[in-house]
């Protein structure tokens, strides 16, 4: 396709015809402030923030100065076009828009959760004025909970309609609408609706101001205290790229991280709220010995518990030992697991597919989950042609397990084989590496585990699984690990450690490494990175991957943020006085 050549602020740019000026500018690191424009949504052109001066060559080929500014989001690039983003026409237009946006804004930043990541704050600081000429009463609009995850503060809303377009174009539910008109315009629920769509939390991300905020994190933390760790959401086989936001080692929220080939800009609410188990009161913080035949037992240190497990495995012998891995282990942990236990007397445990009946877009293997038909008709295409959907498989790394342990080891038949062997009394020792939140072992498995004389369970929380064990080891949640997951479409992605393991808890990597050492196997150094290197060399499905390559660096770090982290100019007190002096008191 022929490219159009034009210039933005003197920089020569080539772009395919049909590109909008705003996209071209952002792609080339020229920041143009904008509110209503979002790359994944249709163009509305209503906020008027992205106005630039566009000069087109006239009949004589000379550039003619523009009489009025144009919005960059709805202006197509043209051959020979000259776009200017810093002329007085543009700066004055931006000041005007910001003045209009702020006249009815409550300026309640001190109690607003968006403060610190608010485009209204940032742009006012960078492009606006430090005074207001507005002397009238402000308009009052409603505040209400749109749904379980989203609260709406009408007074803060700038009516950009990103959220309305999201529910129309991405979620397909049309839950949100704009009602009234003129200055009374306000976002509201469509009649008779509750905004409980599984993708509802995304409107909080795309809201450029504090109008739509998360009820989950309401007034809990100030965003500038949050540390951001890039990671992967573990709650289904989609493997949405996310950021884990922590303060003082406490996870406060998960945010989607843009990856056009996996999740676009989005993630679902199941994933978004799927960090609660990390801080659950039932979380295992220490290792325990709870023998079946004796009343004694109790807390153990890590080394003691490992010695106990090694003893149990030695006693049981290779024939009497089975090991179960969960589809929540990282590829590196699975690799170490395979080195330790082989691929014969091992099986895979995993969370069952979604059972809820309510509509949401789900993708997945319909043979594995015949109850869940593919629902592709709703939702918008991501860049690679896939639709943003939640995977039916509620496990992050089933594919990785299949690649490392083999399809047979991961088949349900193998787990049945274990259950039968255990119930027949052939299993002397079972090692279960679960570390899955909300996992209820199916009844036969629970019975089988209870029938095995020595059952070792590595898990996150007290529950039926830990209850069936004789030795309980406190494991690590996914946010406490480094490693890689391979999603349902075969893409290997890296997760990073956002917080240390709590209490005595250890990562499965540490558990496996200590156990191997105790059993006298040559383990060698076991960093996730090193293990991943081994995996690349030894397992064909991982050939060609690199530790650096499996981490997707989002071009846009966070959906509400600009293309590049911007450094704000620091206004000197003198400049503030100058600005105020220009206004009316």
């Amino acid at each position, binding site marked *: 396709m022929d490219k159009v050549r034009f210039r933005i602020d003197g920089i020569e740019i080539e772009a395919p015809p049909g590109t909008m000026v705003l996209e071209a500018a952002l792609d080339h690191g020229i920041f143009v402030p904008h509110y209503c424009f979002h790359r994944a949504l249709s163009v509305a052109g*209503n906020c*008027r923030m992205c106005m630039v001066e566009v000069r087109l060559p006239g009949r004589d080929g000379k550039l003619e100065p523009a009489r009025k500014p144009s919005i960059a989001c709805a202006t197509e690039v043209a051959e020979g076009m000259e776009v200017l983003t810093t002329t007085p026409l543009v700066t004055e237009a931006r000041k005007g828009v910001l003045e*209009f946006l702020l006249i009815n804004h409550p300026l309640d930043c001190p109690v607003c959760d968006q403060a610190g990541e608010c485009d209204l704050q940032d742009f006012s600081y960078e492009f606006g004025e430090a005074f207001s000429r507005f002397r009238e009463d402000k308009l009052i609009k409603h505040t209400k909970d749109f749904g379980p995850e989203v609260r709406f503060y009408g007074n803060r809303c700038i009516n950009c309609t990103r959220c309305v377009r999201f529910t129309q174009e991405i979620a397909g539910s049309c839950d949100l609408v704009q009602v009234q008109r*003129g*200055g009374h315009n306000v976002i509201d629920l469509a009649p008779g609706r509750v905004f409980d769509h599984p993708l509802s939390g995304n409107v909080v991300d795309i809201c450029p101001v504090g109008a739509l905020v998360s009820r989950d994190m309401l007034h809990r933390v100030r965003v500038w205290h949050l540390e951001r760790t890039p990671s992967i959401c573990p709650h289904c086989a989609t493997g949405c790229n996310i950021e884990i936001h922590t303060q003082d080692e406490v996870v406060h929220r998960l945010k989607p991280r843009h990856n056009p080939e996996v999740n676009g800009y989005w993630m679902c609410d199941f994933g978004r709220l799927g960090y609660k188990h990390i801080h659950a009161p039932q979380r295992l913080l220490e290792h325990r010995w709870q023998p079946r035949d004796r009343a004694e037992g109790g807390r153990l240190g890590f080394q003691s518990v490992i010695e106990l497990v090694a003893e149990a495995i030695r006693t049981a012998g290779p024939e009497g030992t089975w090991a179960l891995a969960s589809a929540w282990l990282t590829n590196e942990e699975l690799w170490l697991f395979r080195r330790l236990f082989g691929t014969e007397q091992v099986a895979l445990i995993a969370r069952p597919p979604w059972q809820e009946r309510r509509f949401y877009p789900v993708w997945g293997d319909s043979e594995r989950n015949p109850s869940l038909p593919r629902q592709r008709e709703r939702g918008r295409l991501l860049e690679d042609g896939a639709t943003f959907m939640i995977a039916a498989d509620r496990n992050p790394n089933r594919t990785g397990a299949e690649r490392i342990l083999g399809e047979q080891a991961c088949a349900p038949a193998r787990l049945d084989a274990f259950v039968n062997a255990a119930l027949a009394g052939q299993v002397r020792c079972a090692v279960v590496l679960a570390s899955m939140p909300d996992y209820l072992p199916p009844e036969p498995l629970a019975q089988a585990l209870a029938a095995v004389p020595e059952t070792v369970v590595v898990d996150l929380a007290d529950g039926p699984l830990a209850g069936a064990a004789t030795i309980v080891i406190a494991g690590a949640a996914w946010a406490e690990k480094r490693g890689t997951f391979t999603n349902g479409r075969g893409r290997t992605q890296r997760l990073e450690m956002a917080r240390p393991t709590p209490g005595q808890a250890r990562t499965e990597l540490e558990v496996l490494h200590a156990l191997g050492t105790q059993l006298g196997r040559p383990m060698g150094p076991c960093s996730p990175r090193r293990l991943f290197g081994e995996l690349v060399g030894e397992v064909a499905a991982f050939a060609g991957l690199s530790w650096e390559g499996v981490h997707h660096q989002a071009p846009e770090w966070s959906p509400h943020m600009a293309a590049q982290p911007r450094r704000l100019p620091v206004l000197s007190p003198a400049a503030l006085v100058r600005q105020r002096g220009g206004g009316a008191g």
Partner: protein
Amino acid sequence: MPLGYQRLVGAVQEAYERGLLGKGIFGIDGFDVEIDDPPRAPAPTSAAKRRGCSPRWRAAGATPSSSPLSPAVSGLFGCPTVVNNVVTIAYLPYIFGGFGRGGDAEAGIAWWRSHGTEKSPGLMPYSISGHVRAPGVYELPLGTRLGDMLELAGGWERPWKAVIPGGSSAKILRLPESLDVSMDFEGLMQAGTMLGSAGVIVMDETVCVVDALYNLLRFYAHESCGQCTPCREGTGWAEKIVARIEKGQGRMEDLDTLLGLADRAIGKTICVFAEAFCWPIQSCIALFREEFEAHIRERRCPLRAGPRAAAGERAVGAGAH
């Protein structure tokens, strides 16, 4: 149902009955022309603008489209769409169809050209309202002198003060200074305003210009569709400021604020609604600044206790009395 709407629907029905509309009209196979009933649900005025109609017709919300293309290139359903006023369409058969002249198109064109001025030929239905004895719609040649037009509408017992010559968004003119203005496109442009919809609103000396502007701005604040920031916020802001001045609570800097917000709104929106509410602000302050200042100085409306009270506070711009 409004009378105008009844007549429109009736005319459409009549045309169908006579075979002028529908499938294969005039017996030409495949020549289909359909006219839908116009939408009746209330819509903001901005939806009646050229860019507003097509989203409205496909029920996508009554807001003007931000498409950079003109509707004639890409309008309804992305197809080229011609959007015209009823006046234009109503005159077409007389001009190009030789309607009433035995189908002689040349005669129709010559007849059209025999009226009006060189650059603005033809007729125009002027809707004259306000302080004239016989308000109503007058079909007159373009280029008619404003003074003659007002006399034709019956004149008025008190001296005139101002006229809005082209619908409420046209810039106001002072009277009697502008009585000689030629009521056509060029003449009014020369006078710094526009012919617009040819809605002529006449005000006599009892009218408070601040109050009249407040009346207009109330309309605009109510009619803005609220899509673009400057118009959504600016209309309400301007209304509140002018209301305050009229109540005698104005400050001198309010006038600068009004002019400043007008500057910041004009040319910054999708449709021309921002211009529509800003031109009255700019022209009222430019031509009647002393009246605004009197409101602010005296902390009251000087006309409330003056001639206006005597005249019984007759409404301005209310159409037929």
